[in-house]
């Protein structure tokens, strides 16, 4: 690890100005991803600006019934928040399905959104990787690709985004608030993470030095029910093979609206708009759920080791929707 300076930010504007002025500077939050990357040689900032003592640690109810989550709120505190659990169970469940108790006590809202892929080649500096070293190639092409993408990948990168929280936020149409030199801008979570294309080194649309200050959740429609389900190699403390976040509204036994996002299948949380379209107005039946899944997964491009992700995602979506459709209204 190269030597670096450490400083503690006390106001957001100065933190932004400092990091913007230095290409070698980085924000430090819980450190659970960045410190790991510094040890592995994937990141080598020369100045760390610690944002954890900025006053961005509040969870607030918005006047319209939505919620505003500060950037430095710890994942465990957010998951346990009574109002969040009542209004957005999908988000609480997604947070609790991620990492471990110790990690969730450190991990922050912003850090979670910005965590980088767990692609084994990305984390191993001895192998080619376009994300780590643009132009060096992609070792996952023709390599070990069981965990890699089935949707939206490019020949330059097959990686998937590892966050559980971000998948739920995508289904909830959450908005990221980012502070730059010219003030704040609002970025829908759905547009926050990128597909790899020919620039896989960029995970998100955030610019260097832009500070995430909060994430806002729009109000939950009356009667909407939501859930998150994650499938993994062991029962706990493992990244997703695939996951499903769903928000369902029904009228009797018809689907009024559904918002669905998949995790573990793409370079970003995958909003399943085709499946949503297929479900709107359809009967809330197992057949309709499976057809909706197929509408989305028809575009899947399979790799030698990851074909299992398609039936796994289809079955999981159907199971989650079945559960939501039959759940008693609370």
């Amino acid at each position: 690890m190269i030597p670096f300076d450490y400083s503690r930010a006390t106001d957001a504007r100065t933190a932004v100005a400092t990091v913007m002025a230095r290409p070698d500077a980085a924000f430090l939050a819980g450190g659970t991803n960045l410190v790991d990357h510094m040890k592995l040689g994937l990141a080598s900032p020369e100045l760390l600006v610690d944002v954890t003592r900025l006053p961005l640690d509040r969870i607030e109810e918005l006047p319209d019934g939505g919620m505003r989550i500060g950037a430095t709120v710890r994942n465990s505190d957010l998951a346990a928040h009574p109002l969040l659990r009542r209004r957005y169970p999908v988000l609480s469940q997604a947070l609790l399905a991620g990492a471990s108790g110790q990690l969730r006590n450190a991990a922050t809202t912003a850090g979670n959104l910005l965590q980088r892929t767990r692609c084994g080649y990305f984390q191993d500096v001895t192998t080619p990787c376009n994300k780590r070293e643009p132009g060096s190639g992609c070792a996952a092409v023709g390599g070990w690709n069981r965990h890699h993408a089935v949707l939206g990948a490019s020949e330059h990168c097959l990686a998937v985004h590892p966050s559980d929280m971000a998948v739920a936020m995508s289904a909830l149409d959450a908005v990221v608030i980012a502070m730059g030199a010219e003030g704040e801008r609002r970025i829908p979570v759905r547009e926050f993470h990128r597909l790899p294309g020919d620039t896989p080194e960029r995970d998100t649309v955030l610019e260097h030095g832009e500070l995430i200050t909060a994430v806002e959740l729009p109000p939950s429609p009356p009667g909407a029910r939501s859930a998150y389900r994650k499938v993994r190699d062991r029962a706990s403390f493992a990244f997703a093979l695939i996951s499903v976040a769903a928000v369902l509204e029904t009228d009797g036994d018809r689907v009024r609206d559904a918002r669905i996002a998949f995790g573990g299948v793409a370079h970003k949380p995958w909003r399943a708009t085709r499946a949503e379209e297929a479900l709107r107005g359809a009967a809330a039946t197992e057949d309709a759920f499976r057809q909706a899944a197929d509408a989305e997964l028809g575009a899947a491009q399979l790799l030698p080791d990851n074909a299992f992700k398609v039936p796994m995602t289809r079955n999981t979506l159907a199971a989650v929707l079945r559960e939501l459709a039959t759940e008693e209204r609370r």
Partner: protein
Amino acid sequence: MIVLDGSHSGVPHRRSPACRSCREPARGRLPAKVWLLQPGWYPSEVDSHLTLRVDGEEWSLTVDTRTTLLDALRDRLSITSPKKGCDHGQCGSCTVLIDGRRRLSCLTFAVAHDEAEITTAEGLATGESELHPVQQAFLDHDGFQCGYCTPGQICSAVGMLAEAEAGHPSVVTPTGNGSGESGRPAVLDDDEIRERMSGNLCRCGAYVNIVTAIRAVARR
């Protein structure tokens, strides 16, 4: 009187091998200095002074900013109960309580914890004979074999029990059962204990008795 905290805080004592600061001068009291960010000004030294309160003792030390909290505790303060298993957040053997909450000391830099209150497994006991209930339960129920993961397991269990008491849910807590929503303590059955302790791996596979030990404390 022998002062063991090394703070030299006004209590005169002779140079003594029992005193940590006498054994290692770097542990003496130094003025703590924390870099606060000012417009247009950057710190330019990689050494940082900080104060850590560990297991009730206060330490002032100067560390290279690259030092993780785990390395600061083990290599600088000779507090070796937090163990280095993986050094990448994957095993939980470095678990300590920071300001009362369980955290991994390997994935955080010491400089980020100036003035923090840190409790390691060593600091949970109130004396040689007064073990913490979780420590006693691990002994009573044979919750370990080689013991390497044990200090991390114990710190994690102490933090986890406090979380459950505060009504924090886990992913296996049935939604809508009310537990936690009104601040009520979560009910810890074996599934809950296993899920909440999943960040602590045990290479010996002592899991069955670890669950038994924690269940015994949770039921009290």
